[in-house]
């Protein structure tokens, strides 16, 4: 089954919550919990031998939606194919993650300084068995990024990369994804216990596939960027899309 479009998912969650308010038969109970975001620094040289030291890292986060579906365990409907017209059998279907029922969401748009950490807001949610989440990066506005830290982009990292050969690249990179980051693992049976969700961005994973040698020549201030078709930009996009770059944990005891 293909995942529902975002508006329908929101509608489904709203319907779930409304049914609870109207004495619905489901056993799930309404609850809220805070969602925060932070980062962990690269711990080792990346795949191309570059040791990255981030000096700034910001991200513009839109909706965060929690689902019951676990990664790599899915159900889906058969896709139409011409074989079915002639009575053949052939099951084509997309990948192996389907989010399933929505259990909670944060709908704020926030710019987060990852090196300092920040809050994304409170999730409007229900109790249940959580399996995954979807993280949407969005283009910031003047209201959500008043200091223009992101320069109109969804994610930004500035820092220095030093190669094992001794070469050093000062870089300033931005990225804009065309789709949400789906299927981030978060497996927990969540009831009414106090706590919050922390999303830690592993900056090492973000930077792991970048060969900084393919960045642009330094500008007048000695800073390189990632040209659109460069390996560096391609590797950077793939790193930001990598769901394992987002480590989601439940932090016990924090105020609900």
């Amino acid at each position, binding site marked *: 089954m*293909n*995942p529902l479009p975002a508006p329908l998912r929101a509608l489904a969650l709203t319907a779930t919550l409304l049914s609870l308010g109207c004495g619905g038969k489901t056993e799930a109970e309404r609850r809220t919990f805070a969602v925060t975001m932070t980062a962990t620094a690269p711990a080792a040289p990346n*795949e191309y031998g570059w040791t990255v030291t981030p000096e700034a890292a910001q991200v513009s986060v839109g909706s965060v939606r929690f689902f019951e579906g676990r*990664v*790599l*365990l*899915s*159900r*889906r*409907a*058969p896709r139409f*194919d*011409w*074989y079915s017209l002639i009575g*053949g*059998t*052939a*099951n*084509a*279907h*997309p*990948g*192996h*993650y*389907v989010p399933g029922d929505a259990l909670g969401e944060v709908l704020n748009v926030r710019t987060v300084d990852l090196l300092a950490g920040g809050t994304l807001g409170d999730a409007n949610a229900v109790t249940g068995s959580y399996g995954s989440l979807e993280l949407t990066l969005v283009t910031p506005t003047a209201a959500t990024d008043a200091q223009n830290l992101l320069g109109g982009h969804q994610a930004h990292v500035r820092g220095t990369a030093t190669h094992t050969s001794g070469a050093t690249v000062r870089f300033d990179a931005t990225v804009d994804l*065309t*789709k949400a980051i*789906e*299927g*981030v*693992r978060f497996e927990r049976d969540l009831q009414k216990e106090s706590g919050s969700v922390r999303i830690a961005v592993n900056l090492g994973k973000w930077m792991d*596939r970048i*060969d900084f040698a393919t960045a642009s020549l330094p500008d007048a201030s000695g800073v390189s960027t990632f040209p659109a078709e460069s*390996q560096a*930009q*391609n*590797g950077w*996009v*793939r790193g930001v*899309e*990598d*769901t*394992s770059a987002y480590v989601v944990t439940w932090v016990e005891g924090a105020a609900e």
Partner: protein
Amino acid sequence: MKKHWLMGVSCLALVACSSGEGNVTFTTYGEDFIEKQIPASAFEDGWSVKYDKFLVKLGEVKVANHEGETAAEQSPAKVYDVHRPGPVDVATFNDLASAEWDEVSYAIAPVTDATAGNADAEDVTRMNTEGWSVYVEGTATKGTVTKRFRWGFPTNTVYEHCENEDIGNGVTVPKGGTETVQLTIHGDHLFFDDLQSADAKMRFDAIAAADSTGIVGPDGDITLDELGLVDLTSLPSNQYGTGGAGSVRTLRDFVTALVRTVGHYRGEGECSPRVR
């Protein structure tokens, strides 16, 4: 044919208490995509694929329940060529307690002592000698261009918690009858362009282009070594996404990861693949 299956001790108690017994027959089937072809309409980039051989080493078929009781188990692996017309019988378990056995699992693993299912003896020997669990051979065609591939994989995967949304979890053994359960092999998965996304598309352009790399150069044969030379970051960034899969950096890594997803259950049904 010598049969090897183990009956769980706990099953005896279940049989004693149950109101009847029945049988379960497991089959395997490659569907039209493997038996006939994957048409160009299924690909985003106009290729079509015809398999000439699709060997899988199936074993460790197990019928159990979530309480840990095992009704039947057949450990030894056999090699099946699911390109040949199917479904083909894999195992039959007789006189099982008529009940809902909600935990069915099986393995596609590179054991070295597999015997023939419906595969040729020389294919079985090669699979054992090379340590492969899956071997595929076929051609891809686009216009006047044809590329050949012959790929063997040593992947070791257990497919657990098998279920079919329309039929249910595991298998229900009928009283006095036989239930047939198909271990379905999905041959189209090897060409998906994303390991996780529900929006994955089928593509072959990048795989075909790999034939241009390496020492030999383009010879019409795409080898796994050639796929291993294609770093995913050299491909468009909106293709060949790896989701959360670690250490998938080349097209060879990518196709090898996809091989773990070929095992399905009763058509469109799904199992949880566990890497060993």
